[in-house]
């Protein structure tokens, strides 16, 4: 019975997706336009390009290990560095009124600068290559983390801070056991937004003079008119974005179980 119920739930949610695919396939076949290959052709290209490798390397092709490792390394180093810097700077600025008053106009300005516009500058400073790509990602995604952390540590419940003072919890322990956990829901929201930004910036940074990575694969395919391959890159990026978000949500739900539980009771 339970399996049947689960199956029904799945069908109820998935039928529209299936319908869209079928329609897409039928229409693109009927139109037969080079720029819009049918989804089966895209899947085929995706398979050939990245997933037709030997079983020993989890069916990943050499292309895949090259492209994914380059792209994902840049993405996670950039996002990780931005996350760490954002939390540290955000906490420092948020806890000090003087720093906050000084820094907030500057932060608001820097945040408003669209990160891709800095690419030409970063290319001059760091030359083409990994450093430039990582810096582009890190600089672009640090803002949501920094500003959210700032806001989070500023709005920690005052009674919780007073309680900590009354019971003699020292400065450092107050930061680690009370202020940061209290700000965690906002910090995590910032990190999640940053992760999806990071994916976008990863692709953009790879469109400039790089030889490996999903973005450069995409550009190469477009230049050699291999449209199914180009589409394969686009689809792959969509899948990655979806998976990252899903994994992050799962992590967040575990780490912030207290927040979700407390909120559910409050409403």
């Amino acid at each position, binding site marked *: 019975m339970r399996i049947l119920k689960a199956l029904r739930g799945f069908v109820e949610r998935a039928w529209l997706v299936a319908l869209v695919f079928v329609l897409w396939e039928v229409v693109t076949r009927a139109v037969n336009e080079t720029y819009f290959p049918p989804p089966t052709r895209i899947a085929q290209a995706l398979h050939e390009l990245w997933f037709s490798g030997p079983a020993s390397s989890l069916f990943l092709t050499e292309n895949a290990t090259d492209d994914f490792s380059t792209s994902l390394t840049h993405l996670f180093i950039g996002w990780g560095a931005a996350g760490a810097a954002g939390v540290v700077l955000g906490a420092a600025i948020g806890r000090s009124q003087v720093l906050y008053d000084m820094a907030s106009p500057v932060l608001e300005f820097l945040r408003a600068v669209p990160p891709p516009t800095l690419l030409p500058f970063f290319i001059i400073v760091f030359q083409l290559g990994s450093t430039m790509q990582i810096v582009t990602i890190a600089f672009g995604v640090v803002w949501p983390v920094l500003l959210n952390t700032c806001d989070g540590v500023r709005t920690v*419940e005052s009674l919780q801070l*007073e*309680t900590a*003072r009354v*019971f*003699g919890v020292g400065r450092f322990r107050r930061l680690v056991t009370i202020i940061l*956990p209290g700000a965690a829901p906002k910090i995590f929201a910032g990190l999640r937004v940053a992760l999806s930004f990071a994916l976008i910036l990863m692709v953009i940074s790879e469109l400039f003079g790089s030889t490996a990575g999903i973005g450069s694969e995409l550009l190469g395919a477009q230049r050699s008119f291999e449209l199914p391959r180009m589409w394969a890159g686009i689809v792959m990026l969509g899948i990655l974005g979806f998976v990252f978000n899903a994994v992050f949500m799962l992590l967040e739900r575990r780490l912030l179980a207290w927040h979700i539980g*407390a909120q559910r009771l409050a409403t």
Partner: protein
Amino acid sequence: MLQITGLTHSYGGDGLKVLDGLDLTVPDGQLVSIVGPSGCGKSTLLRCIAGLIQPTGGRLTLDGRPINGVPDDLAVVFQDYSRSLFPWLSVRDNVALPLRRRGKSRSERRAAAEEALESVGLHDAGRKYPWQLSGGMQQRVSIARALAYRPSLLLMDEPFGSVDAQTREDLEDLVLQVHRTEKMTILLVTHDIDESVYVGDRVVVLNRSPARVHADLPVGLPSVRDQIDTRGLPEFVQLRAEVGRLVRGGARVPGAAPVGAQPAGVAEAKGAGAKPAP
């Protein structure tokens, strides 16, 4: 011993004056109820004693040392338990958190926390989170946290203001039991006149803001109290009426003093003042 002389506080420099020359002496081991009309500055008084705010005037000393910042062996139970407990820590970790500065090891802290939880009737809640408990149980956790800290002075700021009547009575009895067994000095701020008489060894009535001590009444009730019996005693009824009148702004009626009570709180304060400081 807690000694307060001429305590004055205004918010925002010369702004609103909340306390105006308040004098109060509390000898060790006494349970004092502080009662007054709402908004009269009761909480400000507690915050000054706790060292959370620096009063604009007057002197506060605890065991002879002036209060400058939060005193070492002082604990507070706030009214708003849901905002004073940390939702990301388990109940046991909430209780154990302040014990680190007592120089105890991790296992000692845990054991002390469990013991304190047991003494407030929460032996199996240690692994739960505060928000998984009812309001009354959460306030018990706050009380356990204060007990585990082993303060010599416990401040309670309208601790039972947000729980239902039945729970309130249970918690009042818990405070009496704690006071009997731990022998700590307790200052309990309340706006509930019944509660102030039922729990206190002594009831201090404050004026409408700016607050000073309006009246200081010893409670002549037997030290073992019972929710039904004690509240039925003629002394209780009389004292409650007297406190009620005073809170409403009436003057003391000399003839209305409860049976067995000294004529005025001044005598009490003098007696306490004559004792040598420990």
